[in-house]
Structures are given as structure tokens and as C-alpha cells.
């Protein structure tokens, strides 16, 4: 049999079985492989000794090459039974050829079947074993994973608890047990619902209900719990819902972190931030916060009251008895104040010896009665060590509707009112008075604008005649300063001189007035010669203490070419009453220079005549109140006698006497009869402009006759 025939059979075979099974061969490799099998089959078919077992092996070989599709066997058997006899035709004379081929086909089938069975069983066993191994691997991994989870549960630094959906606690880790002080048995007999703390926000348990119903997957809150020993812990609590594979709620896991320590620290820091360490009272920050709360919601007619309290003379205690005693005193005062306050009232230390009491939803009577209680409570002596201290306090009270004020206004008003209580004599309360405050504000405004007003020439000087009572002739004029204020109109000296004295502006202003007056006097002297009046200028106490006073006067006199004898300086008794020698020395120098010196408003102060004796003086100006007592309608014999005595005494001291406030002819006559030398008042003339004085000088008439005052105007 030729090679070609065998090869073409193998090719037929390959074509027949291609695609019936997957074998890892290309088409050519397949044909080559099948050629080998073809050889074995043909050799067996034509062998002298027929052995069909070769075909059995060929069947097994097909399976080994992975011809596992049974179609392969069908195609193979069809080819062998149908085409192998033809292929061998003429190549063998074996009479049993057809039977041999049938035997071969049968053996291929048997070999294939038994090999496929073996292969199938092997593969099934292999895959089942692989399944088992995979499962075992998975279980081992699961066990390892569970061990890890268990370790995580038992060794976690946070508390972990597991509960079912009915709220039974089923597991708790050691940290959680320690945190709560329970045993596991204690815990597992508890219900989640028994973990309620009275301070829990309603939202906590709403969130819990939603979680159990599956409406939310977790929630996180800060929550307090009771410990087994009755103590309390603060925790960060996170509760999570665990669902089963269908997504239905299965159980709950709580993770609990103990933040009690942090919480205590925060509470302590908060307390420290809002309390005074010495007295334990709330501090300024707390007051500020509390007021802010009140003012954040100024509902309807809500009112607020404030008592601003300051101890009188606390500095003396501190300085003389030491800070320890001072501190003890503050502690005792704080305790008495606290004893006076009830609900809705907050007492706080603002610092130093200042305290404040806030009264919420107040009425004025309540706040006043509280202030009275406080003054009464402080009245009893306070014993500190060996000292028995008596303290008084001044209290400023402000009480008003919340809606009409602001926090800053309220505190400022209380502060001002406290100052009033101090100024009014201490040991008392003062109630805020809007009118008084406005006046003070106006004064304050004046005092701050005065220096600039001098620069802007807002001041001017009027002159009031001083008249000799003997013949009613004009001898002198008193310079009176006025302020033409852009807002308040023309202001008299009584409205700003006191203020200028306080602020020191008087020095600058006084110098300006002196210069103005001297210049004017010098002009009159030039115009009217000896008929010109001397000029009388007021000197404030502050000016008198000014070291440059004498120099200033000299300079001004020189600048205005005015003879010193034409200048009179008026000063009050009080201005000379100090212990200092400076003012008297300055006065003596001026006196020596020839400047006239007058005591103004005599009789309103101490009227210390023996003291006056030692002073360099020319004139006494009797206060206007004496002239009032000389009215004929109400003849006051006491006043008359006093005036007489004063005039006699003055004359005894070689001083002249000028009466202020002369308004009637009757007064004029009485004063003249009593020996008074000069007078000043509306009877003669009111304060006049320089031009009006010019007119009086030109007329050269006596002043004080009926209607003369008006004519002068």
C-alpha cells in the first residue's frame, strides 16, 4: 500500500473530525497525528496475526489528544467502516478483512469510551478536589479573618457593643465593660433603652429609632451615660446598622469613645474663662455673654437692670493693710453681694473692686430695692483677721427696656451713674438720669472744643461798669468773657469757666482775656485820658498757681502800654486758701508792681478777715447776696449789720469795699449810708460792649439815676 493512500486517508480523517473537538493542534499537525493512527490501524488490519487491541489503544489515543467531543468518535467510526475497506482493496487478500475492520471499529469505540470515562472521572475528581481545596482555603482565610476581627474587638481601645433590633445588648468588648464598670452578664441583661440619660437630646433617640427601622445607616452623637457605680461618662457614640444580604436590618453596632476627661477639661477651661478665680463669681466675660444673650432677643417689653458697684476707698485698704487683706475683703464683699441676689440676677466681679449685678426682666423699683439691700448688707463691719473693716460702696443703677438700648450704652450708662454716686458723696446709689447725662455730655463737648474755640476767636469780652457810690461816676469796668458757640449760642462765664478750670483750658483763655481787656483799657486811656476806667480782670485759682503768671501780666502790660495801676485783678478767697506759698508770692509781686488786687465774691466762703490782713489787697467785692438783704421791702437788719461790720473792718484794714448786685436806688442809698465805696450792678449798667462804654464815657453823666441803666443799653 502506498504512502500516498495512507496520507490521503489521514487527511480525510482530519477533515471529518476538524471542529468536532478542541485539540491543541493546527490542521497540518492534526493530519500528521492522525496519519500515525492510520498507520497503526492499517498495519493491524493486514497483519498475519490479527490483534484488535491496537484499535483499543487508538481509541484511547484520541481521548488523550483531547478528542473529547463524541462527534469525533462517530465521524471516525463512519470513516473506518465506510472507507478503510476500499483503501485496502487490492492490497490484501485477507478473507476476513470486513470482519477485521468491524472488530477494529468496535475496539476503537471501546478504547475511546473507556479512556473518555477515565478522563471524565479524573477531571471531575480534579475539579471537585479543587472545589474542596478552594473552600478549605476560604474557610481558613475566614477563620484567620475572624480571629483578626475578634482580636480587634477584644483589644480595641474604643468600646464596642453589639445589639439586636429589639435593643437587647448581645456583646460588649472589654473596653466597653471597663468604661461602664459592668460585667458582660450585667451588660447582656441590659436593654439599649435603659441607657437613656436625662440630659439626652430628643434627637438622639429619634436617630436610634430611625436606625432600627433601617431609615438610616448610622448616627454619631455626643452622649452621657451612667456608669454602674452611679458616675457619669461623656462619650462620642457612633451607632451603625448592619444589614443582612437582602438589605434588611440585622443588628446594630455601637462604637463608644470615652471623652469624659476631655469633657472635664473643657468644662474646667470654660469655668475658668467665665469666672473670677479670687471670688468665684462670674467675670466680665460672663457678664458680656449674658448681656449679649439678652440683647440678642429684645422681645416685646422685656427690661434689663444693671447695678454697677464700686467699693469706696478700697485703694486705701489695699495700700495700708496689704493686698492679702484687700483680697479677703473682696471675697467677703462678693459673698455678701451673692447673698443679696436671687433668681434672674447675676452678680459678677468686673475686676479690681468693681462688681456688677444684672437683673433680667426687671422693674426700676426692684433694682433700687436690690441696691438698697446691697448697701445694707455691706453696712455691717467685715472682720478680716484682726481688722474690723467698714466698707461702703457706690452704686450706679440703670434700668430700661432692652429694645431701646444697646449693650454698650447700658454698660456705659451704668459706669457714668456709678461716677455720679461717687461724686454725690459715696456710700449711696445714683439712678441714671438722661437729662443730667445730656448736660454732662454737653459740658464734656464744650471742654474738648474750648482750646480750638480760642484759636477760632469764638470768645469775646463785655465790660460792666464799676461806679463810685459818692458821685456815681464810672471808675472802672470788669471784663466778662463770653463764648459765641456755633451750636449753643452765646454762653456766659458760669457755663464754661468751671469747666475750663477743670481741664486747664483756663490758663490759655485767661491770658487771652487779660490781653484783650488791657488792650481795650489802653485804648480808652488814649481816647479819654484820666476819665478812662481802670480794668478789672478775673483770675481763676488755676491761673494764680501758674508759675508764668507774673511774667505774663508784665508782658501784656508792656505790649499794651498800660500802667499797672490801671489794672485790677479779681480773685476768690478760695484761690488763696491753699497751703502753697506760690499764689501769695505772685500776688505780692503784682501788688508791688502797682497792680490793684481785689477779693471777689467776698462773704460766700470762709470770709476769714484776719487772714486777709496778711494779704496784699486793695479792695473787697461783697457778694451780691448782701445787696439782696438790703431791699427796703424786706429790711434784714442782720444783713445790714453784717455789711456795716464788713465795711468797717475793711476800712480798718485800709481796703476799699465794692458792692456787687446793686439793682435799686434804695440799695444804693443804704450802701452809701453804710460807707461802702463802690458798686456794680444793673442799677448802673449791665455788661456792655466797648462801644457802649465809649458812649457812657463821652456822655460823662453820673450812672445810677432813674433810667440810666436802660439808656446805657
Amino acid at each position, binding site marked *: 500500500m502506498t504512502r500516498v493512500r495512507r496520507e490521503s486517508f489521514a487527511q480525510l480523517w482530519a477533515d471529518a473530525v476538524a471542529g468536532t473537538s478542541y485539540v491543541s493542534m493546527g490542521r497540518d499537525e492534526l493530519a500528521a497525528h492522525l496519519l500515525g493512527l492510520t498507520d497503526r490501524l492499517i498495519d493491524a488490519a493486514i497483519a498475519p496475526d490479527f490483534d484488535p487491541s491496537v484499535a483499543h489503544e487508538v481509541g484511547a489515543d484520541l481521548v488523550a489528544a483531547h478528542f473529547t467531543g463524541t462527534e469525533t468518535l462517530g465521524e471516525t467510526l463512519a470513516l473506518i467502516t465506510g472507507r478503510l475497506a476500499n483503501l485496502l482493496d487490492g492490497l490484501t487478500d485477507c478473507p476476513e478483512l470486513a470482519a477485521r475492520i468491524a472488530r477494529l471499529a468496535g475496539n476503537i469505540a471501546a478504547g475511546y469510551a473507556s479512556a473518555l470515562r477515565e478522563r471524565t472521572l479524573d477531571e471531575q475528581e480534579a475539579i471537585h478536589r*479543587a472545589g474542596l481545596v478552594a473552600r478549605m482555603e476560604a474557610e481558613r482565610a475566614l477563620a484567620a479573618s475572624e480571629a483578626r476581627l475578634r482580636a480587634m474587638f477584644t483589644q480595641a481601645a474604643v468600646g464596642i457593643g453589639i445589639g439586636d433590633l429589639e435593643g437587647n445588648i448581645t456583646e460588649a468588648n472589654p473596653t466597653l465593660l471597663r468604661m461602664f464598670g459592668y460585667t458582660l452578664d450585667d451588660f447582656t441583661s441590659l436593654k439599649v433603652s435603659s441607657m437613656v440619660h436625662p440630659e439626652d437630646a430628643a434627637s438622639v433617640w429619634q436617630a436610634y429609632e430611625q436606625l432600627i427601622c433601617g431609615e438610616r445607616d448610622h448616627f454619631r452623637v455626643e452622649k452621657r451615660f451612667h456608669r454602674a457605680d452611679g458616675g457619669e461618662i461623656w462619650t462620642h457614640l457612633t451607632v451603625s446598622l448592619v444589614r443582612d444580604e437582602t438589605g434588611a436590618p440585622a443588628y446594630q453596632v455601637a462604637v463608644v469613645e470615652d471623652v469624659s476627661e476631655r469633657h472635664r477639661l473643657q468644662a474646667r477651661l470654660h469655668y475658668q474663662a467665665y469666672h473670677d478665680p479670687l471670688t468665684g463669681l462670674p467675670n466680665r466675660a460672663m457678664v458680656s455673654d449674658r448681656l449679649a444673650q439678652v440683647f440678642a432677643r429684645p422681645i416685646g417689653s422685656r427690661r434689663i437692670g444693671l447695678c454697677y458697684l464700686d467699693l469706696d476707698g478700697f485703694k486705701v485698704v489695699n495700700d495700708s493693710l496689704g493686698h492679702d487683706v484687700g483680697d479677703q475683703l473682696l471675697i467677703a464683699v462678693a459673698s455678701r453681694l451673692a447673698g443679696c441676689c436671687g433668681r434672674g440676677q447675676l452678680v459678677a466681679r468686673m475686676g479690681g473692686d468693681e462688681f456688677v449685678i444684672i437683673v433680667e426682666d426687671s422693674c426700676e423699683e426692684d433694682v433700687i430695692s436690690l441696691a438698697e439691700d446691697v448697701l445694707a448688707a455691706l453696712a455691717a463691719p467685715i472682720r478680716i483677721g484682726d481688722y474690723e473693716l467698714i466698707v461702703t460702696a457706690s452704686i450706679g443703677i440703670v434700668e430700661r427696656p432692652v429694645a431701646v438700648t444697646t449693650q454698650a450704652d447700658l454698660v456705659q450708662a451704668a459706669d457714668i451713674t456709678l461716677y455720679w454716686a461717687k461724686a454725690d458723696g459715696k456710700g449711696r446709689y445714683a439712678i441714671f438720669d438722661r437729662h443730667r447725662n445730656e448736660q454732662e455730655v454737653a459740658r464734656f463737648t464744650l471742654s474738648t472744643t474750648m482750646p480750638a474755640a480760642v484759636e477760632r476767636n469764638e470768645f469775646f469780652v463785655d465790660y460792666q461798669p464799676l461806679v463810685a457810690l459818692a458821685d456815681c461816676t464810672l471808675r472802672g469796668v470788669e471784663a466778662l468773657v463770653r463764648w459765641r458757640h456755633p451750636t449753643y449760642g452765646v454762653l456766659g462765664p458760669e457755663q464754661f469757666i468751671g469747666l475750663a478750670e477743670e481741664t486747664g483750658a483756663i490758663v490759655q483763655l485767661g491770658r487771652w482775656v487779660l490781653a484783650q481787656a488791657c488792650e481795650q483799657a489802653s485804648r480808652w486811656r488814649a481816647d479819654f485820658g484820666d476819665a478812662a476806667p481802670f480794668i478789672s480782670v478775673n483770675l481763676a485759682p488755676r491761673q494764680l498757681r501758674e508759675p508764668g503768671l507774673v511774667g505774663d501780666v508784665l508782658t501784656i502790660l508792656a505790649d499794651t502800654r498800660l500802667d499797672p495801676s490801671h489794672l485790677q485783678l479779681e480773685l476768690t478767697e478760695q484761690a488763696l486758701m491753699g497751703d502753697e506759698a506760690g499764689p501769695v508770692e505772685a500776688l505780692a509781686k503784682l501788688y508791688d508792681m502797682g497792680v490793684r488786687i481785689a477779693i471777689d465774691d467776698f462773704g460766700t466762703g470762709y470770709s476769714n478777715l484776719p487772714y486777709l490782713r496778711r494779704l496784699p489787697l486793695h479792695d473787697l467785692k461783697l457778694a451780691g447776696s448782701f445787696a439782696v438783704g438790703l431791699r427796703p421791702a424786706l429790711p434784714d437788719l442782720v444783713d445790714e449789720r453784717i455789711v456795716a461790720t464788713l465795711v468797717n473792718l475793711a476800712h480798718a484794714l485800709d481796703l476799699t469795699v465794692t458792692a456787687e448786685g446793686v439793682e435799686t436806688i434804695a440799695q444804693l442809698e443804704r450802701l452809701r449810708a453804710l460807707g461802702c465805696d463802690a458798686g456794680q450792678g444793673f442799677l448802673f449798667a449791665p455788661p456792655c460792649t466797648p462801644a457802649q462804654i465809649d458812649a457812657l464815657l463821652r456822655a460823662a453823666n453820673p450812672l445810677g439815676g432813674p433810667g440810666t441803666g436802660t439808656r446805657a443799653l
Partner: protein
Amino acid sequence: MDRPSWAPTDVDLELPSAARVYDYYLGGSHNFAVDREMARRAIELWPDLPQVLQANRAFLRRAVRYLISQGITQFLDIGSGIPTVGNVHEVAQDALPEARVVYVDVEPVAVAHTRAILADNDRADIVQADLSDVNAITADPRATRLLDFSRPVGVLMVALLHFVPDDADPAKIVSRYRELMVPGSQLVLSHATQEGRPDQADSHTALYERTTTPMTMRSRSQVAELLCDFDIVAPGVVFLPQWRPESPADVDDRPERFTGYAAVGRRE
């Protein structure tokens, strides 16, 4: 990945697995009743399916031989499944006995089986990992023992990426493998497509929805896009039997019946 890496993989033998169904299509018995049931229903819907997968397996064989002819001696076969007849290490080591092969599969039964088969082969091993877990694969001692990533590697993703849905971004996954492939490395790809048999693709996809590995069919241009950063070697992206057939007779009259695209890309 949703589960932490230390959590165990679930082994559920009641669910069909693509790897074992594939084995059944190729005439193997490394499968369970559920797998065969699934396979029989698929064949009912699509009688050509065994031929398609045989063609895919034949492509794998030709591709491995081609890579060896190009000097590749080490292979990383991702999604290797059940190492049934004509697997990569057999083909590669038949042609080049010192060839090294690392399989990767996530399915625990396939991994266990592969491990059993490779018990006596010290040049082939398997890493259990997901396709997307590139770092875990390249760091696994079973892989580093056999593969040297400083030299060209043949990476195989045969009948794999159609199990990666669009939202898992298969192109990105391919690019991450590309990063660890030095120039001269090759990527072997085959991918199911609806082109050729659009009438059957949907029902087939629907069937796979019920397995642990649902399918996403892709067009020729989409498959070419996956290889855009590689030099695609001739004959390009073609139906499975058309890729470098060993003889003209191997190419069917209607290659589009074999509804899968095959391609090899070279990393330059």
C-alpha cells in the same frame, strides 16, 4: 475593591463560573452541574458557541507561539481560568522548555485547580488576584519568583476584557499593565463582540448577567482603542480565525461567525 484585602473570597459552588463553563465548551469535564446547565442553555441560544471558543483557544495557541518566535520567554496570563487543554504553559513550554508562565485568576476553584496541575512544574505558577489589582500581582512572590519585569513580557488578556464593564474603565486597566511592560513586551487580546452576530449577542449577554461575570460586548474600534498605546501587529484587529492562521483551510468561509476579535500589540 469593596472588600478589604484580608477578607476571604466567598466560594459558592452553586453559582456557574465562566472559567468552568469555558472548559465545558472545550469538551472538558472540569465543571459542575451548574456550569454544564449554564453552558447547555447558552449553546441552545447560540449553537456556534463551542466553535467560537475553540477558535479563541486556537488563537491563544497561535499567539503564544508567535510571541516565542518574537523572543518572548515569560508570560503573564490574566484571567487564565481552568487550565484546560492547550493552556499557555503547555504551548509555551512545548516550544521553549525554559519558558516561564504566571497565571492570574480571582476565582478560587480555578486557582486551586491550577495549583494542583502545576504542582510539578517549577516554571509556572498562579497568583490569586483581580485583574485590576496590578500592584498585588506584580508584588506577589509567586510572580516575582518567575517573572523579570525588566525584560519583555507577554501579557495575555484572552477572552477577559469583555468581563470588565465600561464603568470599571478597561482602558485604564490596560494602561496600568502597559506601564510595567518594558519595550518589546507584547499584549495578546481577544474580546467578544456583537459585530458579526448582533441577533445573538443580546441574549448571550443576558445569560451571562446571571453569572459572577457579566459580559460587555465591544466593537472592533472599541477593541482597537484598548490597544491604542501599542503597535498593533499584522494583521491588526481581526476575527479570531483570521489572526495569522496556520493554513488557509483554518480560516472558515464565514469568519464573522466567530464573534470575537483578536489582536496582538507590541510595546515600543
